[in-house]
């Protein structure tokens, strides 16, 4: 993919704060508290994935930042601009791809993308819009009405609309919901390309694989509270569990007494022993693997094969959002 999405010149260096959310809360009419004093800083040029179960407050948080929902308390700044007091400057920097496939059904792709650019006060630039449509493989469909497009194509149109005014921050609310596997991977590539060009990406997703694949940092929201914000790799190291599975040469009826300190699990068929340890301990000293292998030798337990497996982000996520 070429540099089709180049945003407006980015003044500050990558990695500096782009969005500051400070004590944002939201209570809807009727009393439902969707957000409870959420504070978060999102850095320029990163891909931040916001995870959480349905109704956790992800879309509410995005909607408050983008101006679709009024916060009950707290402040949001985008590149230093308050999103209420200085809303024009803040919103100019933001592109939003909503969760629902919305749009003027009778408009053509070209008209709707041009409309979006004009709405954000940008001068006409057909060459730029053409680059976007080509990059999103929409150029051939530019004269088609939105109602005639497939779901995947409509999703691309929404991305094209969000990019039409060259935003520095792009919000993707469930960007690949209902999209087939091939298209999902294409979209991941599009997001990576955007990040490479300096666009800050904030995405919410139900697909943990998506966050695992793309995110630099991950935030987990549960019942309106941000329960965790961490770099993805650190999160997986810290909270991930590892398993060492040993395929035995001869089946065992039970775990030998001498191996009790290692809390091993014997598979149902007695053919494998499973040893669990913290991934943060690594594979070397501290994991207890070397000691375990020595103890197995001394106990006369022979194995033919061994392999390790790290718990996925999905397993970490489930453990984080599990109700106490």
């Amino acid at each position, binding site marked *: 993919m070429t540099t089709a999405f180049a945003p407006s010149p980015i003044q500050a260096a990558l990695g500096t704060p782009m969005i500051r959310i400070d004590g944002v809360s939201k209570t*809807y*009419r009727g009393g439902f508290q969707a957000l409870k004093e959420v504070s978060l800083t999102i850095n320029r040029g990163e891909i931040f994935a916001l995870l959480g179960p349905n109704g956790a407050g992800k879309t509410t948080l995005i909607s408050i930042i*983008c*101006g*679709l*929902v*009024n916060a009950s308390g707290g402040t949001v700044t985008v590149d230093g601009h308050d999103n209420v007091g200085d*809303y*024009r*400057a*803040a*919103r*100019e920097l*933001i592109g*939003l791809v*909503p969760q*629902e496939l*919305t*749009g*003027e*059904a*009778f408009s053509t792709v070209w*008209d709707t993308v041009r*409309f*979006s650019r*004009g*709405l*954000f*006060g*940008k*001068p006409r630039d057909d060459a730029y819009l053409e680059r976007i449509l080509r990059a999103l493989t929409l150029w051939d469909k530019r004269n088609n009405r939105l109602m005639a497009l497939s779901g995947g194509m409509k999703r691309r149109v929404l991305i094209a*609309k969000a990019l039409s005014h060259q935003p520095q921050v792009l919000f993707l609310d469930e960007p690949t919901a209902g999209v087939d596997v091939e298209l999902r991977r294409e979209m991941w590539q599009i997001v990576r390309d955007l990040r490479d060009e300096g666009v800050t990406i904030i995405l919410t997703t139900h697909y943990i694989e998506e966050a695992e694949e793309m995110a630099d940092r991950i935030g987990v929201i549960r019942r309106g509270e941000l329960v965790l914000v961490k770099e993805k790799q650190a999160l997986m190291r810290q909270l991930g569990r590892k398993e060492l599975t040993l395929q035995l040469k001869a089946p065992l009826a039970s775990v030998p007494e001498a191996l009790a300190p290692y809390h091993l699990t014997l598979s149902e068929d007695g053919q494998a022993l499973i040893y669990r340890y913290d991934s943060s301990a690594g594979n070397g000293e501290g994991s207890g693997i070397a000691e375990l292998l020595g103890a197995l030798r001394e106990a006369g337990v022979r194995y033919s094969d061994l392999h390790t497996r790290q718990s996925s982000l999905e397993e970490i996520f489930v453990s984080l959002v599990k109700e106490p």
Partner: protein
Amino acid sequence: MNLKAVRTLYLAELARTKRTMLQSIVSPVISTSLYFVVFGAAIGTRISEVAGVSYGAFIVPGLIMLMLLTQSVATASFGIFFPRFSGAIYELLSAPVSYAEIVIGYVGAAATKAVALGLIALATASLFVPLEIAHPLWMLFFLVLTAVTFSLLGFIIGIWADGFEQLQLVPLLIITPLTFLGGTFYALEMLPPFWQAVTLFNPVVYLVSGFRWSFYGIGDVSLAASLGMIGVFLVIGIGLVGWIFKSGYRLKP
């Protein structure tokens, strides 16, 4: 002011008119022609002059006002309701545009379409009856101000409505009856005294009267009363729209 955004909204709304040319322009022209055939030619020939004006010519301002009110309300209400209905409103609310700019874009486009249709109706009427316009500038003034005022009302209805039924409710149950009973087809002096008094509570009477005055120099109420009533409508409309955006009513939870 984000003039590019205003222009974009305005042109996008007018483009909708272009896309739906048949129902937007042709059908109001046909319906106006039918009014002239029925009321002007068939019934009108049996009615003597009203205040020195032939009946066919007398109903022209009322018919134009009927079209102006219904089209202003319908166009503006649909214009803002449809993105709410489809969910596309997110783009408007997240764009760097002020509430005033949004209103100018939508109401401006609806008023433009209504004025254009009013002028087309006027041209259509001139094919049926000889027309004279005593105060053309006042006529345009009434045309534009009424279109803007009722487009504001339509905008409010479009935000208030929860579905297509509600969208039709106010135009069908309120605007059309008030217009028919607002002196479109008769002068107030043709009514019994009691109903003359009741009719004065109908705000459309003042609009039709002022508009008719700009044509023939005659009206059921004074010019000042007509101007005052439009002014009151306008202020109420602006006030309501201001409240809607300030409170986020049906737009921002």
